């Protein structure tokens, strides 16, 4: 059956079973992805997917279940499983939300562009082939293009409950990723570039290919740096990449469960005064924008750090009640999972410096342009230990690409050691709006 009918059917089951506290999330997505290799399309993936997750609250206990099949038997099975699961959970304090009084039209959030859904495989293939050719032609040291894909995706979700909540929004996007491999004197370097937008711009293909190649080419000749302390500039990609691993600490639920280092620090300074961090759920075009969260609670702009001071935790209904507060509208949910705490669009207002000017504020610094995985970064303790690629910069001039270098420190110390903020966010669709940062006090190993 159609998704709308599936949602209605599950809510009707709830009424039939005299369960007044049931909510659900239904999602659907459509995706078209192409990969090219050596001037030819090598893979086309085309898909439609759907899922329905139901939550039953019964005597203060919660159970969840999901299904990807929207026919009566499967929907009923999922509903009954959620009901059964609720019997074994320890009691919680969830009271489902009543419908918000007035919700603006989510189309006003600018998350959906009708023209993107019309893009066909030929258009995506032309983009990918042009990007590949541009990447290859940009430098004679290119030896392979291990990955070049272009995709468009379109999705929607609906939150509904027995309390009368009903909220649906849709979004779409187009994106491409290019990885180029270059080799010189036995040294191999990858250059990566991605492009993710809500507007179709075929001319971006050549820019993407050239950018990936130029990034890899700039790293050829990289050498290790001697260990020690050196100021570090995280560029507009690596700053959100690194800090984003630690933002789970703003979850009220994490603090309640002893999993946040920010526990007990409300109102205290946790960052330099120049740092403010705000969650903006209504930012036009922001990929995390929404008027209502996954529990049907209205969202609102909420400062997390105000001029260096820790201002607010993020709450969903259950964690808020535990602290005697109201939900801040930060419930997140996938159809196959339960409720989690989720920020929407985290925005750190930028500073005055271009990236170049930022690196010139110190006589000598390490400019980080690429992070190599986050396994050494511990979201709980804040420990940072991560391999990076980038450049040694002296007097504002890039003097040497570096590799086999790690930076180490603590994310919560890092917020206090920010010396200056850059002026630009990275241009791709992202829920993190964090500018480049100049940070002191990090340890380098090389």
């Amino acid at each position, binding site marked *: 059956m159609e998704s709308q009918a599936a949602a209605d059917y599950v809510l009707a089951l709830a009424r039939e079973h005299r369960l007044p506290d049931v909510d659900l999330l239904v999602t659907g997505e459509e995706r078209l992805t192409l990969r090219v290799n050596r001037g*030819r399309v*090598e*893979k*086309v993936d*085309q*898909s*439609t*997917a759907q899922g329905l997750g139901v939550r039953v609250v019964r005597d203060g206990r*919660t*159970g*969840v*279940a*999901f299904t*990807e*099949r929207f026919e009566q038997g*499967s929907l009923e*099975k*999922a509903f009954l*499983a*959620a009901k*059964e*699961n609720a019997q*074994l*959970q*320890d009691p919680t304090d969830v009271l489902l939300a009543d419908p918000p009084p007035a919700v603006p039209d989510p189309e006003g959030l600018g998350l959906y562009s009708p023209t993107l859904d019309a893009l066909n*495989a030929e258009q995506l293939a032309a983009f990918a082939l042009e990007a590949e050719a541009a990447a290859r032609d940009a430098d004679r040291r290119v030896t*392979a293009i*291990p990955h070049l894909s272009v995709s468009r995706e379109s999705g929607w979700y609906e939150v509904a409950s027995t309390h009368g909540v009903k909220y649906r929004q849709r979004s779409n996007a187009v994106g491409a990723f290019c*990885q180029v*491999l270059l080799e010189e004197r036995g040294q*191999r*370097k*990858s250059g990566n570039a991605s492009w993710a937008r809500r507007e179709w711009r075929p001319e971006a293909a050549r820019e993407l290919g050239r950018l990936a190649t130029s990034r890899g080419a700039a790293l050829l000749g990289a050498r*290790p740096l001697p*260990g020690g302390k050196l100021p570090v500039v995280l560029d507009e990609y690596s700053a959100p990449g690194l800090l984003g691993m630690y933002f789970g600490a703003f979850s009220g639920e994490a603090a*309640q*469960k*002893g*999993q946040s280092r920010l526990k007990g620090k409300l109102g205290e300074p946790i960052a330099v005064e120049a740092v403010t961090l705000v969650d903006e759920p209504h930012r036009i075009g922001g990929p995390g924008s929404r008027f209502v969260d996954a529990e049907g609670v209205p969202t609102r702009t909420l400062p997390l750090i105000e001029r260096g001071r820790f201002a607010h935790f993020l709450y969903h209904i259950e964690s808020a009640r535990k602290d005697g507060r109201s939900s801040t509208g930060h419930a997140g949910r996938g159809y*196959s999972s*339960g409720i989690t705490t989720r920020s929407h669009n985290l925005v750190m207002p930028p500073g005055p410096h271009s990236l170049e000017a930022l690196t010139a504020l110190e006589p000598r610094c390490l400019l980080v342009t690429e992070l*190599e*995985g986050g*396994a*050494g*970064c511990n979201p*709980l*303790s804040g420990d940072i*230990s*991560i*391999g990076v690629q980038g450049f040694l910069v002296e007097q504002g001039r890039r003097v040497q690409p570096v590799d086999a*270098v*790690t*930076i*180490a*420190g*603590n994310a919560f110390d890092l917020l206090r050691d920010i010396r200056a903020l850059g002026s630009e966010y990275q241009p791709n669709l992202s829920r993190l709006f964090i500018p480049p940062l100049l940070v002191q006090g990090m*340890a380098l*190993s*090389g």
Partner: protein
Amino acid sequence: MLPPDLLKPSTVHNLLELGLTRGADFAEVFAEDSESSSIDLLDRKIDSIGSGNSFGVGVRLLYGDEAYYGYSSDAEEAALLKLTENLAQAHREHRPGQPSPFRQESVPDRHAVRVDPESVPKRERVDLLRRLDERVRRHGEAITQVGASVSEKKRAVLIANSEGLWVEDGRQYSRIRVSAIAEKGAGPQVGVESPGVLGGYEFFAELDLEKLSESAAGSALLMAGAGYIDGGTMPVVLGNGFGGVIFHEACGHPLETEAIRKQASPFAGKLGQPVAQPILTAIDDGTLEHRWGSLNVDDEGLPAQRTVLIENGILRNYLSDRIGARQAGVPRSGSARRESYRFAPVSRMRNTYIDRGPHTVADMIASIDFGLYAKKMGGGSVDPATGEFNFAVQEGYAIRKGKIAEPVRGATLIGKGHEVLPLISMIGSDLELSAGMCGASSGWVPTTVGQPTLKIDRILVGGR
């Protein structure tokens, strides 16, 4: 097995036939019906209980080396025919085509379930988690938080193709995870254990809870009291079991034909050449009974195999799927895998390990004046094209003058797989395998990593 009413043989035949008549050289149908469930305990409470059903059908058409893949959760024949028609749209050439008649391949089940999970009430799992929580907390007040979860998944899959293959397989996965947080004033540290098997509830029933809790709590407590290591290049003794994650990431991925076929691997063109010292033999074995990364058949329907990757230091084989094998000019190794019907299969690892060697751990430690003993590894990542990797050490110790000295935290190992491999100079006999999840272009699949304790002569250690 897939419920018979979900997808009729005639529907599968019609899909394959449509693919061939639209010019494909090869057509394949992958159908999956999965039941999953999980129970999480956190902060002494049963925090969440969930379950669900995933169902979908994936259709793949190959035109030479071009692959077209699509999927749908709608099992109606009309919907699937439309999906197949859409996939074939780019190729307008029509020709008569008839799939070979299906031959049912029966697969011996090496990983038979002894205790059917459905026969055990959920309450038993809840009790198990509570017992585990209590045992971890027995390690003292410095243990400030405990999390534990049980997750189970039963996958029924069907793979049929235009060459007449029809094979069905059932895969029951069972896994438990425990995490302990310890705090001694210098910031919290986590110790984690997460064993798992391709098997039934017997895994939970036979678990050694004492050992599991000791391992997670012990690691967290040690690291909570540890100082930071001074980074630099030094010899490293890499612990057994999950230490094999480095070989998995830095050598295993670049040995998959997905990287080889594009010449995007440091190991491309190196078959038959020495890539490590003669003491090193490395194997990827999909046949090991009940191991987390094992399979009866791969996701292209080929029986699982044992593949020797490196033999006495010489590179012998790559891990391949149908397309990768053809493009790289190597045999298929039964390594085509996918997370679910939402992914087309590609070459992936199964149970990958470095085989036993002649040395003892004591010999390795004694041979080092100053270095790192990375007893337990955390996660990591690699760029298969360059071999550059980055791994966290979960539990580490300094080695001073041939002896294991103080515990150290915050260490990271950095290097390039093909450069580090020849620097493995000593290998122990204490081979252990350890379960993990591996993410790549065909999604997250269960894999096992493993090795005996081994010594790397020099590697960059990130620290403070």
